[in-house]
């Protein structure tokens, strides 16, 4: 069956579709959070070396992973918007940015909380934490640039270019930070790795899925507001049920 993807790339069809999808994503995200927390705190045993503290990784690792992927997805949407001049993809990019930044922040926060009992310091210049911090700066740069340009089209295009340059730079930054870290014999976060208990893995994957669904739901909610705002002069917006 051939699906006409272009049909869904128009704000007119995407807006109601997103509205219908949001509750599903939100509800399944909430259920998975509950399941993940149950497995993570009740089923999974405490770790031999780290005691109970390792349980932070159920939120720390998913938020790190998601913050990195969201940057790439955001850059991808931004690039689509820049190249094919599609309005919706630029809107998606600016809807994803705040969520990505918040996940980066959560990852840093939980990383610090995990570091305190492990190393006795809130902040350690570990390669992964440092890269995460730089990632947060990149998100903030994207948001700040988008916010300081008044003309929405120029804002979209300028921020898109920045996101593309940033995503090309992310691997370079990551490897240089990693290299810098090994040079200075810094400590590197090591998770239980291969010896991870099956329940720990289940908890981690459930939480990861829950976070993904949350990120999708919130990004869709935000993009609906952006669509409303940008297209407020068009006819179809004034005919929407919620506007009347």
């Amino acid at each position, binding site marked *: 069956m051939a699906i006409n993807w272009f049909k869904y790339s128009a704000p007119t069809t995407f807006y109601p579709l997103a509205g219908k999808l949001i509750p599903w994503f939100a509800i399944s995200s909430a259920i998975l959070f509950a399941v993940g927390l149950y497995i993570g705190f009740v089923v999974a045993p405490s770790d031999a070396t780290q005691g109970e503290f390792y349980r932070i990784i159920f939120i720390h690792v998913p938020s790190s992973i998601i913050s990195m992927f969201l940057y790439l997805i955001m850059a991808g949407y931004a690039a689509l918007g820049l190249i094919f001049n599609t309005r919706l993809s630029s809107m998606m990019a600016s809807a994803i940015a*705040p969520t990505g930044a918040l996940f980066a922040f*959560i990852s840093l926060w939980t990383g610090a*909380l995990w570091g305190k*009992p492990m190393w006795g310091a809130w902040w350690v210049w570990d390669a992964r934490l440092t890269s995460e911090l730089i990632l947060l700066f990149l998100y903030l740069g994207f948001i700040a640039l988008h916010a300081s340009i008044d003309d929405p089209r120029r804002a979209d295009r300028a921020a898109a270019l920045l996101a593309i340059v940033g995503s090309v730079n992310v691997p370079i930054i990551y490897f240089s930070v990693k290299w810098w870290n090994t040079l200075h014999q810094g400590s590197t976060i090591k998770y239980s790795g291969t010896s991870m208990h099956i329940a720990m893995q289940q908890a981690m994957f459930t939480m990861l899925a829950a976070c993904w669904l949350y990120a999708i739901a919130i990004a869709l*909610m935000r993009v609906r507001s952006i669509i409303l*705002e940008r297209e407020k002069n068009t006819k179809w917006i*004034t005919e929407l049920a919620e506007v009347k």
Partner: protein
Amino acid sequence: MGLDIWMRENPLTYIWVGSYAVAFIIFAVEIAMVIHKRKITLQQVRLMREASEEE
């Protein structure tokens, strides 16, 4: 040092209050902000529509 000892004695509370609660508060704030934004935008759109209908 008080915190260090307390932390070792109550690891689960430390984890819960320190990371999970913070994460969920952040999520809640984000959701509230998005809902608020939608309300404001809808209001604006309605105002625009009424203004154009009066013309």
